[in-house]
């Protein structure tokens, strides 16, 4: 579960694109995998003893993940960047808008930015070598007990390996070239809350270790099995718990099983005219339970809120029993909110099985937009003003110059001379007429959502503010492409890996007055560390302000470099990332905005004080004294 919401690469909020396109994607999936919408999606029926063989899953993600998803990279098997025979970049498949398109300037960009060359290629091994996989040790008595529950399980090597990791760079590297030292011994697929209760009871009885698994999109090593764990490790895959149990239109809430992935949730709600509006970048693959367990954040949080604002009720199975509230109310004041022990607990306390979440009517109208600023400083000042006036659209992001150029390199070939002429004219207007330096300017991308009238009004308000900060409206297209970048970035990393380029993203939240200093210093630190560590070519070190709040902002960094000539690139990469994190902390940024996991453990004490850490520990000790949920995240 811990895994699910960690967005693989993009994250600060949102996803490639809007719900509208998202729906198109999703309906594409439907066409691709023609299945009836499964059981009556809205049936409030509890888990009626479907037993171990729950039949075909109604969700988008099958039990055999590898049939649909890449085993050694991000996303769908049929969707990836390639260089075609002419040496041009191209995105394959039909799932995404970019599918089948040629990206004429991308090759040049990758060569110029990383000093990479198409001649120098690394290749992943073609398939998993089953002989390397650590054997499965499962106690016979437990197995008998498990079989008696009729819950579906597997000890297959592939099933176990594909639940031993998330999408951190080092994990993908291991898949391509090595093998994990420790992986789950058995995978179980509960189909309802009661199944989970049984599994947890059995684990307690036999003293085994459970690691919940949702969408597997973690980017913080949250799914890594502790090497020293001697007990049998059970990977509890929630993917088959994916029904909407009921929708309450009067209170605008829906009760949903925690294993549902984002795209299914939105698709099924949309059938009734609703949405949650929660769109982390990973929403195609990450699960509701994962969002809760990791305190996820969504792109459109300005309208819908982050997960902590969306959740009304949580049911979690722990070794101590079931924890939940006795009502479904907007707020209560009886001591600290127990939801806050659960949200962000990252699978260390139990398994979230059912969540009641706020829903909204699907918005009538959506519009992208973008604004060009002469420099990053002005852009940040504008975002700050927008936040101050509390008129942020569903999403507002400011990308720096490097990321703007990155986005530009992903511009598909234009069909007509007229469009390219228009593009040229626009460029001329901005750079020559307005005097913006193309190597300094930066772009804010916008997404408005709501009633048509209100959207247009809102749009005007935001553009008026932007004008005060020297911003120029730069069209819907640029905006849309900006959002596309965040969602293809994870696919792009796989391409980079083939050409000696490794990269990762990380995020932080920071008070407004420190945003500029933090962005500049962290980027510079990365460049400097790369140089010191012997990286031959200057790295890509870029950031965007990706969410705005009253008191600060969420900043997202991309960082990638060409590792040719370096013997241990992962180690070098990790050192640099650690230095960047130190730099963030020294600049008054937080350890994380929405990615926690094992990766940040070393700074926890500094981050929340000894006593704070003790508080978390004591909760863990009470709830799970035998460390059944032993993934060792956070503490």
């Amino acid at each position: 579960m811990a895994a699910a919401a960690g967005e693989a690469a993009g994250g600060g909020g949102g996803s490639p694109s809007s719900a509208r396109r998202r729906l198109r994607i999703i309906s594409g999936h439907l066409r691709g995998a023609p299945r009836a919408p499964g059981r009556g999606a809205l049936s409030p029926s509890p888990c009626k003893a479907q037993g171990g063989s729950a039949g075909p899953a109604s969700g988008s993600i099958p039990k055999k993940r590898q049939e649909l998803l890449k085993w050694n990279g991000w996303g769908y098997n049929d969707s990836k960047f390639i260089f075609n025979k002419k040496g041009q970049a191209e995105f394959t498949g039909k799932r995404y808008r970019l599918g089948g398109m040629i990206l004429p300037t991308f090759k040049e960009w990758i060569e110029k930015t990383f000093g990479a060359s198409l001649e120098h290629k690394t290749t992943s091994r073609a398939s998993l070598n089953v002989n390397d996989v650590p054997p499965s040790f499962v106690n016979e008595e437990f197995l008998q007990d498990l079989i008696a529950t009729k819950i579906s399980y597997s000890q297959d090597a592939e099933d176990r390996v594909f639940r031993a990791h998330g999408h951190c760079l080092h994990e993908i590297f291991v898949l391509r070239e090595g093998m994990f030292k420790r992986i789950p011994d058995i995978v179980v697929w509960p189909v309802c809350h009661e199944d989970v209760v049984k599994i947890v009871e059995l684990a307690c009885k036999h003293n085994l270790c459970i690691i919940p698994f949702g969408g597997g999109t973690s980017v913080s090593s949250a799914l890594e099995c502790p090497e020293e764990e001697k007990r049998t490790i059970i990977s509890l895959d929630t993917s088959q718990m994916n029904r909407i149990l009921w929708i309450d239109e009067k209170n605008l809430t829906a009760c949903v099983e925690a294993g549902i992935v984002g795209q299914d949730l939105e698709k099924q709600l949309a059938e009734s005219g609703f949405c949650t509006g929660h769109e982390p970048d990973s929403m195609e693959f990450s699960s509701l339970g994962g969002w809760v367990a990791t305190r996820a954040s969504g792109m459109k949080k300005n309208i819908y809120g982050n997960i902590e604002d969306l959740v009304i009720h949580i049911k979690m199975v722990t070794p101590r029993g079931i924890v939940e509230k006795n009502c479904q109310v907007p707020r209560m004041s009886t001591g600290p909110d127990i939801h806050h022990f659960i949200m962000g607990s990252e699978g260390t306390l139990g398994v979230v099985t059912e969540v009641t979440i706020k829903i909204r009517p699907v918005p009538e109208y959506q519009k992208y937009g973008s604004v060009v600023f002469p420099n990053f400083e002005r852009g940040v000042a504008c975002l700050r003003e927008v936040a101050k006036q509390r008129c942020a659209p569903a999403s507002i992001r400011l990308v720096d110059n490097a990321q703007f150029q990155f986005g530009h390199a992903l511009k598909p070939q234009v069909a007509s001379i007229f469009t390219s002429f228009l593009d040229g004219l626009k460029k001329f207007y901005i750079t020559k007429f307005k005097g913006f330096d193309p190597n300094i300017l930066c772009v804010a991308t916008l997404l408005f959502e709501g009633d048509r009238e209100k959207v247009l009004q809102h749009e005007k308000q935001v553009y008026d503010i932007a004008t005060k900060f020297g911003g120029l409206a730069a069209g819907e297209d640029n905006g849309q492409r900006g959002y596309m970048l965040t969602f293809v970035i994870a696919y792009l990393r796989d391409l980079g890996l083939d050409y000696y380029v490794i990269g990762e993203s990380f995020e932080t939240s920071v008070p407004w007055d420190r945003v500029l200093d933090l962005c500049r210093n962290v980027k510079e630190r990365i460049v400097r560390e790369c140089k010191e560590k012997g990286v031959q070519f200057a790295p890509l070190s870029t950031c965007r302000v990706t969410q705005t709040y009253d008191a600060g902002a969420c900043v997202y960094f991309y960082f990638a470099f060409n590792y040719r000539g370096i013997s241990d690139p992962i180690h070098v990469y990790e050192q640099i990332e650690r230095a960047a994190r130190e730099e963030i902390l020294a600049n008054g940024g937080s350890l994380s905005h929405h990615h926690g996991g094992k990766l940040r453990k070393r700074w926890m004490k500094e981050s929340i004080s000894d006593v704070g850490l003790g508080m978390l520990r004591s909760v863990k000790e009470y709830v799970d004294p035998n460390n059944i949920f032993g993934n060792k995240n956070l503490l």
Partner: protein
Amino acid sequence: MATAAAAPGRARRGAPMYSKELTSKKRDEFEDILEERRLSSDLRYAMKCYTPVIYKGLSPCKPNAIKSAVLQSEQVQYVIKQLAKEMGESPDIIQEEATEILDEMGHRMQLGAVRFFAFTLSKIFKQLFQRVCVNEEGMQRLQHAIQEHPVVLLPSHRSYVDFLMLSYLLYTYDLALPVIAAGIDFLGMKIVGELLRRAGAFFMRRSFGGNRLYWAVFAEYVKTMLRSGYAPIEFFLEGTRSRTAKTLTPKFGLLSIVMEPFFKREVFDTYLVPISISYERILEESLYAYELLGVPKPKESTSGLLKARRILSDNFGTIHIYVGQPVSLRTLASGRISRCPYNLVPRHLPQKPSEDIQEFVSDVAYKMELLQIENMVLSPWVLVAALLLQNLPAMEFELLLEKTLWLKGLTRTFGGFIEWPDNLCAKKAVLSGLTLHSNIAQLVDGHVVLNDKGVEDGATGEIVFKRALAILMCATYRNQLLNVFVRPSLVALALQMTPSFRKEEVYSCFSFLRDVFSDEFIFFPGISLKDFEEGCFLLTKCDAIQTSQQEIYPTDKGSVTVSFLSAMFRPFVEGYQLIFRYLSKETKEAFTEKQFIPGVRNFVFQLLEKGVTQCYEALSSDMQKNALAALVQLGAVKKKKMSNGFTYNVNQEAVSKILDMFDARIPVQKPVAARL
């Protein structure tokens, strides 16, 4: 470094690298920049196309824009509002006050003024100096540094020429001209003050600790210029010109201001550039000697400056400017500074630096001064002065030559940077020194004699004064060696003062001397043991001592060196003894500095007149102040701040005890010795 970590107290990161850890110190070559000036037109040089190298992130702005940015800054506005609330005044009035402060303080750099200086200084420098030598590699390093991060120039301060010369140099090399923190007293000089202002000087009051508005405006002014990379910021760590040519202990105020933007991460890094400016003959040498003896310093005035122009006919030899390696503040701070204090409070609020930070600032200050010292160029004359002072009233010329060569070798062993061309014979070197410094010493009948005559048959008082003047002037040159020699010499002194050869006793005596002289010489704080080891190492290197597991003893042929070294520092030992004696017996229990200096001066003067002592250097107000400061640090004197300045209270018993340690050579008990 490993042993130092075990030193008393705690390990100090960023401690200086001593010769023990260095295989060889390689220094850059010098170029004479006046040579070209003598060959081509000064006017054309002053009017040359000046397009300096500047900081990469700089958005150019006018001096007035900086001032208004400072006035409107959150930092200054915050203090204005606070003061308005506390004093019940309208913020406008205080804002007005702040504007006045800024107008008094701010520079108005103008290219015109710079060109004027470029022209006149060319003329003047050519007249005064034979050569102005610069390490060009240092200039190149500086050029890179200026583009990369904000730069702080930290030159040594021996003369008013320092900052003129430095700006002149940067102009010559087409680098961004620095803004310079200057004392407000310059503004007393008509025209000149304004001219300096236009050449980039900004003016700070001598003391403004209590004035919050002034402090806020000043600090913000400096930081604004630093953050924006507007220009390199130049100031003197020593705070004032050293009258003794011996590096003064650093002041921390300005340094902590320029370091703050990095602590708050408003800049990625800041480069600190130590610069050593060495004069073969110091322009103000006789003024300084008078001043040290209590004849007041003439107030800065334009007419005074015009009168001083007769010095133009004099020759002041060569200036060496060594621009040191830029030191990255980020590198120095790495792993040392806990970042919490600055994360939890808005950055514009005035915040007293934590103890960690204060300690760090102090360490950096000492480190920079040690780097300055390391690259100070020593002329042969410095060696002559040191020898002459040990052989007063006169020294045979041939012996002097022989000894000078010997001392040259010793100085190099200790890491001193002597400018002595390979083909120059000792005789020529010494003679040229004597020519340049004929006001101090002369060659008479094959003997080198101190120039202390003149009033042969005056009153004894006058003779003492005249002699003191000559000795202090001569000492100014010997002093240039002291910080290079201090570690081995204090070991040598300790060896002589300790009845046994036991290492731990020698160390505890060394440690005592180091504490007593902590204001006199530059010691990196908290590394007493490391200093001791360095001293022992250097003495071993020149075969002066041998060490065993437990003992240190002079070698047979090393006794000459050991006694020379201890004699070199003898004036300080004797001087401090005199001053301590005065404090333990002759003074009232409470006094001000204004009472103390004349009191101790009279006391010493009388002893000199009576011939009871020969320690003329104890007349130096510099030594007197340092000795008092040392007692304050050792806790034997209490310093209290009163409305009219500081008052001192002597614990006479404690002072006597310290005096006993000098006199009776009582070994000092220190638990650290076990570590040796």
